[in-house]
């Protein structure tokens, strides 16, 4: 699922990406360059446009203006499913699992685009179908073990504990070994230990060769695992740099800790 050639500097490159909702500029001319093999953190106060930006990259919303390149490909007009097939996978802020299916089946669906047997293969039980089903099962089990859910493959996804459901969604997103993984608040609602497990998991995903864009409110997770961070505020890019640079940036500190009332109204 690798895209583009090695001499392409960026895996994902967004140029003046803009998304308007009625009169509101949710994302306003944002540039974003994500290097291959890195974890790119996306942070900002509530309503800064992080999830909207992630949804623009995933193709849930069309852009109002701007361009989006994935490797050498211009994916600005690609549908969600086409981007997923090109190698951009994601998780959701409010967990979207197939609740009535088992954990294993959920992960297996992540491999749908990698396999091709259809209705007739299933009915006739063709060798291709049997081979693919075996392959899907093996790779799905491998992904479940990778996130630490090897023991619950047969359980119904809807019956899993919250933390396990978060991990299951990640397993479904990485099973096809995508070039780019978009994580939308993967540690939301998790306790400290679970959040630490997720940051360790994100590092392992990057080490396995998948580039990650991470939207997250847990600052310790973002700072620990990100190679680069982009800070958004009011839909604009406020700052951009390494975790250390971001932590010392006066604009960022101001955005997070608040500013005086006059400046606030001047901004609006």
């Amino acid at each position: 699922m690798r895209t583009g050639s090695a001499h392409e500097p960026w895996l994902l490159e967004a140029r003046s990406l803009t998304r308007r909702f009625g009169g509101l500029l949710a994302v306003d001319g944002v540039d974003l360059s994500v290097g291959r093999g890195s974890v790119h953190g996306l942070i900002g106060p509530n309503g800064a446009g992080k999830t909207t930006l992630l949804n623009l990259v995933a193709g849930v919303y069309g852009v109002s203006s701007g361009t989006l390149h994935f490797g050498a490909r211009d994916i600005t007009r690609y549908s969600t499913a086409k981007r997923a097939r090109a190698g951009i996978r994601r998780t959701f802020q409010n967990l979207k699992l197939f609740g009535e299916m088992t954990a294993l089946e959920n992960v297996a669906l992540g491999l749908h685009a990698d396999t091709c047997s259809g209705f007739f293969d299933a009915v006739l039980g063709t060798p291709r179908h049997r081979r693919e089903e075996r392959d899907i099962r093996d790779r799905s089990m491998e992904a479940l073990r990778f996130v630490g859910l090897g023991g619950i493959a047969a359980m119904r996804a809807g019956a899993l504990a919250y933390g396990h459901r978060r991990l299951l969604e990640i397993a479904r997103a990485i099973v096809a070994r995508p070039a780019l993984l978009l994580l939308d608040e993967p540690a939301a609602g998790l306790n400290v230990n679970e959040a630490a497990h997720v940051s360790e998991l994100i590092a392992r995903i990057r080490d396995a060769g998948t580039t990650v864009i991470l939207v997250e409110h847990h600052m310790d997770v973002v700072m620990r695992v990100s190679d680069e961070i982009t800070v958004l505020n009011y839909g604009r890019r406020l700052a951009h740099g390494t975790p250390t640079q971001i932590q010392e940036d006066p604009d960022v500190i101001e955005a997070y800790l608040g500013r005086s009332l006059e400046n606030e109204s001047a901004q609006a």
Partner: protein
Amino acid sequence: MTISPDPAAARIGATRWVTLLAVAALIVLPWLEADRFVLHVFSLIAIASIVAMGLQLLLGCSGQLSIGQAAFYGIGAYTSALLTTKLGLPFPLALLGAGIVAAVASLLMVPITRLTGAYLAVATLGFSIIVYLVIKNEEWLTGGSYGFISIPRAALFGFVLRDPMYSYYVNVGVAAIVYLTFVRIQGSRFGRAVNAIREDPDAARACGLRVTLLKSECFVIAAFVAGLAGSLYAHEVRYLAPNDFTFWKSIEILIMVVIGGVGSLAGAILGAAVVVGLPEFLRGIGDYRMLVFGAILIATMLFGEGGLAAICTTLGRRLGGLVTRLTPKPAGTNESVQ
């Protein structure tokens, strides 16, 4: 493994036994039951269950509510009648042709698979009304309101199936093939994808699934089997009238799926047996039978969303529990499901 697979395995074993008993009962039925009319009713149930299983795939698996399945059923019936009478094609080819023509007709519906819920339902209803009007008004082709008469009996390899017992085997046989086909889909890559687009279309898209294409495929498959059922109906009854294919027929098919249990393949068959069989069974009480029928529909729904399939599963489990409690050695199941 943190959970024991034993209860699930036991249930699969029980399902297999019930299926085997049902198959055995269906095979020996013509020899035990001398009344040819009863066989005819069983044929009609088998035919109805084929359409119902198609809608089960559409509604129960892919989550698309169609109240226009009678259109494809009607297209299949008239296609088969025309192919055998006008072109003199043998029955097996006409059967296949009926399925194919119904499937092709369903391609007209592909643009509306983007619709969901009530909007999709009304659009399919509209299609059903159009097909009914074509059947009723194109007299040169369909015989219009006079009906389509003198349709030949089903014949296999030049052997005309004159005895209702033989056509019974053909109808039940085709229903069994459709059932097995749909069973094989479950748990396959295609089946998982179809379930996924019902459970969460957004997550399905994020997995790279072509949601609209999969929905269309389900529409075409459901239409194909409805066409097969139409063909079987044409040669079983041998007279077609437009009133057999009004939107009421579509509603009947929907009732079969819902009272049988949305999502359950066996439920679709049970539902067909109730909707087709019960009015025949209640013939003795004359005009009151539709009243009783309606009351039974409401009562079934009161027991919950799972329909007859869920009720049977619960009863089976209770019975199983009772049997194991009463006898040290487990006895076989003593009830078979049609």
